[in-house]
């Protein structure tokens, strides 16, 4: 079940700052904190509702191809993204609707992409598995397992060489840890001390292959630490734990602490993709994990603390539903790329033809 191991390693820098706050700022801070947490809840709910709508739209054949849902894992994307600045880089996988939303990509742009419209974030060329957004430094959904890791190493290398204080967050699954590219990239990042936050979403399955049937050592945080980088296992069903660990790790990475590895222990409630009949696991196992649902847990806590009412929640749900409705409408109305433009973006216009033909 959800492993309740806390974050390991050094304490964050927060506790060391300044004198004890007075009572009033304390109350203010508590309010700000509660609002912040409601914000986290809102983001998780937004992802879940978006994904639920995707299921309907897939059944209605509006969305096609492979589609991988994030339901159950929302705390990971929301917690980690919260720890990043807009100037940081994100590299991710085919299971990236949640990352895209949490990063701030408009639902419209994602939905239109899955509808294959030119108004989609990747102009309809990518679909569900290949969301990109240059403005958000969102370097894509990569559908080769492990394939995004070397890109992250390169992005981080560029930043290091230019002296930029930027973190590259790279998401990948437990399955990806078995790929050679994982090994090469973690070694390279550790060897060169690159500013990367490795965010391993351990949802215990790679398609139908359970963790213990893929890895001789199933403690992935422990395995990663063997490369000589800082590595923590985090309860990926607890958005606050994720946020805290990610914030510490990102801060350390940003200030030159070298790559950090977070194993975010989570679970996907739905099948691997819409193609997957989900034969390989016990339904009871899924139910047990649902008892630790990240959204229920946080909303329960916020209610208990008096920071969230039924009305608040209804308002949030309404806002989200409206956003998604708008996204679906816009996607439906979106234009298609003209077929004549099929081979655009295979090669770019050359910068100039000027040096040409001087010698050959």
């Amino acid at each position, binding site marked *: 079940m959800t492993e309740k191991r806390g974050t390991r390693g050094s304490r964050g820098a927060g506790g060391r700052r300044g004198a004890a706050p007075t009572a009033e700022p304390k109350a203010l801070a508590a309010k700000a904190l509660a609002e912040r947490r409601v914000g986290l809840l809102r983001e998780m709910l937004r992802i879940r509702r978006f994904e639920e709508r995707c299921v309907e739209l897939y059944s209605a054949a509006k969305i*096609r*191809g*492979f589609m991988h849902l994030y339901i159950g894992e929302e705390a990971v994307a929301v917690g980690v993204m919260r720890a990043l600045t807009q100037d940081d880089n994100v590299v991710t996988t085919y299971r990236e609707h949640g990352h895209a939303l949490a990063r701030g990509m408009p639902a419209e742009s994602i939905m239109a*992409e899955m509808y*294959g*419209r030119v108004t989609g974030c*990747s102009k*309809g*060329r*990518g*679909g569900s*598995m*290949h969301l990109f957004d240059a403005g958000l430094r969102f370097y894509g959904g*990569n*559908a*080769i*397992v*492990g*394939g995004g890791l070397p890109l992250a190493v390169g992005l981080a290398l560029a930043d290091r060489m230019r002296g930029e204080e930027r973190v590259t967050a790279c998401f990948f699954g437990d*399955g*990806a840890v*078995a*790929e*050679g590219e994982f090994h090469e990239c973690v070694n390279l990042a550790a060897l060169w001390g690159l500013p990367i936050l490795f965010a391993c979403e351990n949802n215990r399955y*790679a*398609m*139908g*292959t*359970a963790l213990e*049937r*893929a*890895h001789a050592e199933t403690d992935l945080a422990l395995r990663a630490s063997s490369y000589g980088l800082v590595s923590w296992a985090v309860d990926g069903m607890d958005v606050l734990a994720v946020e805290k660990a990610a914030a510490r790790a990102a801060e350390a990475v940003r200030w030159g602490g070298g790559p950090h590895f977070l194993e975010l222990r989570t679970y996907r409630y739905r099948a691997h993709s819409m*193609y*997957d*009949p989900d*034969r*390989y696991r016990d339904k009871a196992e899924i139910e047990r994990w649902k008892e630790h649902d990240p959204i229920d847990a946080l909303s329960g806590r916020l209610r208990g603390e008096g920071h969230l009412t039924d009305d608040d929640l209804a308002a949030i749900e309404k806002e989200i539903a409206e956003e998604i409705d708008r996204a679906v409408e816009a996607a439906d109305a979106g234009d*298609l*790329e003209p*077929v004549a433009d*099929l*081979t655009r973006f*295979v090669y770019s216009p050359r910068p100039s033809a000027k040096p040409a033909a001087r010698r050959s």
Partner: protein
Amino acid sequence: MKTAVKSEQITYREAMREAIREALHRDDRVFLMGEDVGRYGGCFAVSLGLLEEFGPERIRDTPLSESAFVGAGIGAALAGMRPIVEIMTVNFSLLALDQILNNAATILHMSGGQFNVPLVIRMTTGAGRQLAAQHSHSLEGWYAHIPGLRIVAPATLDDARGMLWTAIEDPDPVLIFEHGTLYNMPGELSGPGPVDIDHAAIRRPGSDVTLVTYGGMLHKTLAAAGQLAETGVDAEVVDLRTLRPLDDKAIMESVRRTHRAVVVDEAWRSGGISAEVSARITEQAFFDLDAPVGRVCGAEVPTPYAKHLEEAAIPQPADIVAAVRRAVDGDA
């Protein structure tokens, strides 16, 4: 052991599954290895039920480690086993290409003939399911560049059922490419047992033009031939079946009869198998040709997701018809 009997309706997927079952029953050196071939039932359900029948030693799920498990297949083959390695999709096979080219295709020669690699690698290929640029390539013709490999592409149920048997008996590595759009294709089998993999097959005899194709494109080409027949053009359709080595004789015999040829291939045009077929026809039947060899190929673009773009990126019957018209009408 259930075997398919004549006149029973069956899909390409089931035919392939029967072929694997049969191989596992026939020869205890055979085993199936790959990602999710067992518990999951195979990413395209080809191996569904085999784990239950043969157990986890012979239906062997692997971690996501394409290079290691393909290479392990090579090693097991060196040791005398008859592994069938499944790679989910042709794009992922790039991760194992070092093992395939530098080892599987090379060791027999490099060792002076001492070590054979009787390995079968199966993988899904092709576009048409809106899976976008990292799941839709057609690289089988590209693999056909590599000496030491045999490349086959079953396009019919009988070939799906029969090619594996012959492949497993081959002392050298054989790669089987299964087009993703074929798995649900229904039909009847003419019976179990091996099929020849040395020869191309004429799937439709005709006298006006030779259409050379294979795999997923066979069915579009047959559709195009049907349309052409209505306009009075009688096309012969040659299914290459094996892309390496090519059956030059079958191709040339057909071209010598029809004097015109169009090659249809879903892969990118430049440097695809269509170029090789065209070059060989030019070399071997130049003076029999009444028109230049035509090619209908995939657009040179990473496969886009959007349906209309994907359709435009791969050959459609109308494109084939148009190319044939050019070959027929463009006579000098």
